[in-house]
């Protein structure tokens, strides 16, 4: 009879029961969607950061911009370059680079596991026969790269000098070598390059092809692909070759640091205080600041906080007031559902009084009421799960694009520009107009990231627990309500006309 009553009740639910289901569905769907959106914006932000700074980077060290908190009295070097040679103008991107000793000094700080320098360059063709893509090589038995694409005057190429002795640290670590090989430690002085896959596709470059920069042909040894639409640079060179290209031997624009998981040891008073805060990166950052005055040391948190644009706004909104508002609405919906359920049970008081008059025990009646409330809650929660999953899938399918602008000197580059160049004629790099470039240290470049709403198993588990909790709360309210009437009031309810 329990299931008969339940089935019949749920087959024709009253308005209150429907409202309870709708309230719980709203609550669960809202929490699920908000959490997924939050995870999606966090993931998008991480992608932006990874594109800009690479993986494994806990800290970046750059020369402080004037007025950016440098040591008092420190003279800042003038911006380097541009250097013009053999028809190419080479410009070091970002503020004045750090000198050759910076990497060693950073690496010597307690708590630093690894440190590597990087140098971002812009290579601009000043007339029509530079930055030339060669046709020379075949790789194995495949892919002969033909044609001789010549950049017109004014075409730009973003290049990045990477420390070949520190693989896995720096911008190139954001990419996967999908063809060829990465740099080896022995290639520090060789004229070799790794091309971003978008750039390679746009200019028909393959393994063994060459790109001529400032009169030197760089042989492509690898093709790098990023998992998203942004790439740190179009071409990666060994750091020493990049320094030579820019005419700044030993200079690095950014030092990438991985913090050791071991205790940092003595890192000065500031470092000790920062370490005491629980984040070892803060302690190491303080030590580096003390050792290298006039530098800007950014932690992952700083880098994340420095991301601006619609993506950052969305992230702040979903993590802050928007998220709390959604949770608040969800909590209110659950409470309202519980109150409505109590009301719905209250409206069945006469029916329950009749059952008592028929000899049904209190426990059996309570079981019936709790069963109804619990089933209502479960149906509402299940509907909420389905609704939330549908919403997140829809959001992921639509994939609205958000732009973000990371701070600092990290390089990045949208592949859309490279791919657009495919449509252009050989020798014409107009497609690269879509490549977005930052002008300086603080003005990062805008990156486009598709927003997703990933639903992990842990999120589903969380939503299920919430759904179950809400259903139990509703059932408890039902139990409380049905437990309230004394036999006499039940009888009165039964006797009421």
């Amino acid at each position, binding site marked *: *009879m329990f299931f*008969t*009553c339940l089935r*019949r*009740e749920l*087959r*024709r639910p009253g308005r209150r029961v429907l409202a309870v289901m709708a309230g719980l569905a709203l609550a669960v769907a809202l929490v699920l969607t908000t959490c997924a959106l939050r995870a999606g914006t966090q993931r998008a932000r991480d992608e932006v950061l990874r594109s800009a700074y690479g993986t494994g980077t806990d800290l970046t060290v750059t020369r402080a911009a004037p007025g950016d908190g440098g040591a008092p009295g420190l003279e800042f070097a003038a911006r380097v370059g541009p250097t013009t040679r053999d028809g190419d103008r080479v410009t070091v991107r970002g503020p004045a680079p750090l000198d050759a000793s910076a990497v060693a000094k950073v690496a010597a700080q307690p708590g630093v596991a690894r440190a590597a320098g990087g140098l971002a360059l812009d290579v601009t063709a000043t007339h029509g026969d530079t930055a030339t893509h060669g046709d020379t090589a075949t790789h194995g038995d495949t892919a002969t790269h033909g044609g001789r694409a010549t950049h017109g005057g004014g075409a730009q190429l973003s290049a990045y000098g990477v420390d070949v002795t520190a693989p896995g640290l720096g911008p190139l670590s954001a990419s996967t070598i999908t063809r060829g090989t990465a740099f080896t430690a022995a290639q520090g002085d060789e004229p070799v390059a790794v091309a971003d896959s978008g750039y390679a596709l746009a200019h028909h470059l393959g393994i063994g092809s060459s790109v001529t920069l400032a009169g030197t042909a760089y042989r492509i040894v690898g093709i790098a692909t990023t998992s998203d639409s942004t790439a740190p640079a179009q071409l990666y060179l060994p750091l020493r070759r990049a320094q030579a290209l820019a005419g700044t031997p030993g200079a690095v624009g950014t030092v990438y640091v991985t913090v050791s998981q071991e205790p940092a040891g003595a890192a000065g008073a500031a470092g000790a205080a920062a370490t005491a805060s629980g984040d070892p990166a803060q302690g190491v950052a303080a030590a580096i600041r003390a050792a290298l005055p006039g530098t800007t040391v950014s932690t992952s948190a700083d880098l994340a906080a420095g991301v601006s644009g619609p993506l950052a706004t969305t992230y702040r909104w979903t993590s802050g007031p928007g998220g709390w508002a959604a949770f608040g609405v969800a909590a209110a919906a659950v409470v309202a559902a519980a109150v409505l359920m109590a009301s719905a049970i209250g409206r069945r008081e*006469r*029916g329950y*009084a*009749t*059952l*008592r*008059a*028929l*000899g*049904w*025990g*209190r426990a*059996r009646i309570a079981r019936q009421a709790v069963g109804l409330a619990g089933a209502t809650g479960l149906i509402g929660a299940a509907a909420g799960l389905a609704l939330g999953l549908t919403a997140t899938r829809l959001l992921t399918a639509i994939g609205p694009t958000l732009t973000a602008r990371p701070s600092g000197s990290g390089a990045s580059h949208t592949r859309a520009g490279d791919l657009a160049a495919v449509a252009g004629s050989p020798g014409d790099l107009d497609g690269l107009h879509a490549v977005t470039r930052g002008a300086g240290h603080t003005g990062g470049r805008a990156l486009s990231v598709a927003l997703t709403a990933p639903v992990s198993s842990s999120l589903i588990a969380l939503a299920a627990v919430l759904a179950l909790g809400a259903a139990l709360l509703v059932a408890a309210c039902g139990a409380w309500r049905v437990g309230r009437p004394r*036999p*006499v009031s*039940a*009888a009165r309810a*039964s*006797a009421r*006309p």
Partner: protein
Amino acid sequence: MYRLTAVTKRYGPADDTVEGLSDVTLSVPRGGQLVVQGPPGGGKSTLLRLLGGLDRPTEGTVELDGTDLAALDDGTLAAVRAEHIGFVPRRAHLLPALTARQNVEAALVPLGVRRGERRTRAARALEWAGLGARLRCVPAELTPAERQRVAVARAVVKRPKVLLADEPTGGLGRQDAAEVLALLEAARHADAVPEPGYVPTLVMVTHDSATARRAPRLAVLRRGRVELTEREGGDASS
């Protein structure tokens, strides 16, 4: 048999009590019939609740076949109601989500009757009540008179010792009221009830004067006090 001895029922806080019943003593023999009348607030419903074990007297005892209902715990009292007492409330009070047959079945659930037997007995009781074709109708699809007949079938299906009817014809038209009263009357004749040999005691609150005139025992309740009229035998007293 029912025996009420010096029963008083008070409501409300100690400093502001209202007496629903005041020192009522009466008895109804097994298989007998008692009709209760009186003005609103006279204590009719209170009397019925005490007889049905839905409430406990403030003073005095209510005995059913020698068992003091007031002395039983809630669970035992529920079992007594399930097995021995059939209620016919005013306006039926059927469970709106259940069909007519399921409403009747509900009376057999606390007795532990198996589902198949419940269905059979409920269908038989409804056929007896003239509703054999309406087994699958929900209350909203039934007329008020049909709903009341379902209530009678629900009260009778478990073959209780006692039928308590609280204004069972309230709100019904004359013809419908007559049919419901005839059904209740029929329930007390061995040759007409669902189970042969079964003759329950009937206590009925009604405003129907014709029924009151025919009743062998008439109890008129005013301000909680009972005036008893006996037309046969001498088994009731006030």
